[in-house]
């Protein structure tokens, strides 16, 4: 079997959520099947500037083919088009223009995929909302397996994506919440799909003491790992933590790991360590009492899975359906929607608190049962095998005619999203994280 992994950016040092997800999957599947990665020359996800050379390259033993991006993203133009598509009644053409302005607009990549479709059994397409995934899915629909990595934002309500969700061969979801959301916007029940997620190379034993020595961390602490950004809920986290630290002088400290986009408050109990390599990151998780995930929008929190893999409980933002659902399904984390709940959660999950050990144990078990690499690999291979036995689906619905594309009768994407049911997917079917659909 030969597989093409198509992703917007790819590299050993590129650590965006979907990109890391794609790299892990490509490297793992490369042990079982032949894998090529089709990607762009971009490193920066804001501009899609061609930073890397086009052509063939090997990354951790995987063949990577890079294609140039035709034009960089213009943030103002993209913002303007986003407002039109998300908030106003618009046309299909507006949506296509929005997709072009979002990028990465690499026609060479799309052309290559279409020309060499016969050379691959399946195309594993990451991130539904980008140019490459949309156009490759349309060109090679009969071989396209989509990993949507969809979050609950207005892009899911853009109407051009619904035919893609209905027209690909299969879907690999990250969570039951994502599955439910996509099913609600596209009615794609007939498309085979499975909730998979992604694994992580969590070490069997991490050395928390080494981390404490290296970074001179003495007090018990909660940790946040990821981009320090307002969109990730870090502003609210800082606000809550500063109130908490004023009220509880002997409570937990906060350690931050990751690149800062917003300013980290100068506070004696907040330590920012910057970006850490995997060894330090896992040691830090092992040393922490708990992990805090303040993000509002996640399709799957890999770092939460890693924390559970190391037996650490998670305190998540309860306004994120996926995180809340994961906490409930795993019984390994609490969630907060207010400052009071944040404080109570921190108190309960302290290492000498009443719940830390129990939830940590549940987390490790949840990770091993659903997110260990053998489980993930088996789900992917089973899906490919299942698709090879299944009848080829109907062709993907074509785009409307030239005139119809320009008719402004498409409702705002935000309105579509507002009609999608929210909340964690806790039905018996969804609660089984391995549950298949269709």
């Amino acid at each position, binding site marked *: 079997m030969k597989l093409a992994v198509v992703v917007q950016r790819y590299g050993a040092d590129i650590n965006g959520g979907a990109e890391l997800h794609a790299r892990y999957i490509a490297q793992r599947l490369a042990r079982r099947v032949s894998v090529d990665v089709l990607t762009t020359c971009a490193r920066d996800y804001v501009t899609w500037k061609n930073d890397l050379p086009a052509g063939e390259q090997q990354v951790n033993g995987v063949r990577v083919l890079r294609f140039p991006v035709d034009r960089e993203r213009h943030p103002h133009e993209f913002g*303007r088009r986003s407002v039109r598509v998300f908030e106003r009644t618009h046309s299909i053409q507006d949506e296509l223009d929005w997709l072009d302005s979002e990028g990465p607009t690499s026609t060479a990549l799309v052309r290559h995929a279409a020309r060499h479709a016969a050379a691959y059994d399946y195309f594993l397409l990451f991130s539904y909302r980008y140019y490459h995934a949309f156009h490759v899915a349309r060109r090679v629909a009969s071989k396209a397996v989509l990993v949507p990595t969809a979050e609950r934002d207005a892009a899911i309500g853009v109407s051009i994506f619904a035919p893609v969700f209905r027209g690909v061969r299969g879907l690999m979801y990250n969570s039951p919440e994502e599955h439910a959301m996509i099913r609600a916007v596209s009615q794609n029940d007939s498309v085979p799909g499975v909730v998979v997620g992604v694994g992580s190379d969590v070490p069997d034993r991490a050395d928390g003491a080494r981390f404490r020595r290296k970074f001179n961390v003495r007090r018990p602490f909660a940790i946040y790992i990821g981009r320090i950004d307002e969109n990730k809920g870090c502003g609210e986290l800082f606000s809550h933590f500063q109130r908490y630290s004023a009220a509880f002088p*002997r*409570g937990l400290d906060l350690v931050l790991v990751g690149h800062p986009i917003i300013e980290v408050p100068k506070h004696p109990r907040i330590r920012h360590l910057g970006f850490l390599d995997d060894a330090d990151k896992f040691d830090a998780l092992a040393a922490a009492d708990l992990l805090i995930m303040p993000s509002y929008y996640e399709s799957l929190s890999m770092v939460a899975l890693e924390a559970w893999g190391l037996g650490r409980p998670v305190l998540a933002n309860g306004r994120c359906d996926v995180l809340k659902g994961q*906490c409930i399904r795993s*019984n390994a984390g609490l969630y907060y*929607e207010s400052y009071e709940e944040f404080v*109570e959660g921190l108190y309960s999950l302290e290492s000498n608190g009443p719940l830390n050990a129990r939830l940590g144990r549940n987390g490790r078990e949840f990770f091993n049962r659903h997110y260990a690499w053998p489980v993930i690999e088996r789900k992917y291979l089973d899906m490919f095998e299942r698709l090879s036995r299944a009848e080829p689906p109907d062709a993907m619905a074509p785009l409307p005619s030239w005139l119809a594309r320009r008719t402004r009768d498409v409702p705002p994407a935000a309105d579509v999203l507002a009609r999608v049911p929210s909340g964690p997917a806790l039905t018996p079917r969804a609660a089984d994280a391995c549950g298949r659909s269709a």
Partner: protein
Amino acid sequence: MSDFHVRSENVDVEQIMRQIRARIRDKRGVDYTEDEIRELANVKLEKFLDPKGIRSDLLQQYRRAREADTAPRNYAFEDTTLYASSRPLLRTIRRLLNPLLKLFFNPNPLIEALHIQSGLNESYNRSEALYYELVHNLVLETTRLGVEVKTLKMRLESISSRIDFDERRARALEGVVQYRPGAAAPLQPPTGQGNDLDNDGNERRNRRRRRRGRRRPVGSEHGAPTLDHASSGTEDLQSDFRGERRTEAPVTPKPQSGESGPVPPKPQSDASGPVPPKPQSDASGPVPPKPQSGASGPVPPKPQSGASGPVPPKPQSGASGPVPPKPQSGEGG
């Protein structure tokens, strides 16, 4: 914070969250969700903006300023605006000729700039309303504070005049006593409860004695030694101020005391016979009220337990400042 009731290994996160929320509700006292609280805050803001509730002409001035400003508040500018027309044919022609237009100049920066300006205008309009609201709220608060300051000033003046009056009266009484050294009995200034105590505490002692007489009529019934003498008045006074329980001599300084019954015992007595109480042992006659420390000012009422002033509530842990809320069991550490 209290621990959770986790009875088995199979914890249920949803149940724990329910417990957490119940505890938060108990603390708050009212079960408001976050959304409800936000709604209440919005209602409050709207109330501030209600013209009926405004006590100044700020809103009228603001409205006049807005009406005087005839400039449009904002406009919408998209990339199609330049070529827009109510006539579809004209719009189509313009669009067709667009490539030709682009040969002469690039309209994109213009479109972009005007679009940004439109956004800025909108932002300005929004912030203008917010500033108005802020200023208006400040005016209201300042008015409220002004009224409060006036009230406090009046109360302060009233209290200081009462203090002044009391001081003058006390001095006048002292003057009366000085000019009439041989007067029969010191008059208690009729100033209320604080004067239940005379300078030496005699009146209070008598009252206490009467009460005890009623409460413990027969001391010897319990095997206490029979009283046959009384201690000196000084001892009585000291003992009174120490707050000791003591038995007293059967004094009858006033007819209404009615102490004709059995005499309560007095263990420490060593005097030879019943002696009427003497506030000061060396006084030869009726003693005028005397300040304890020789101060010439008014004598403050004396606390019963020797404290020098009202005792403030004591913090439980000896902290001198406000103590922040603490979890009931160990907070990390």
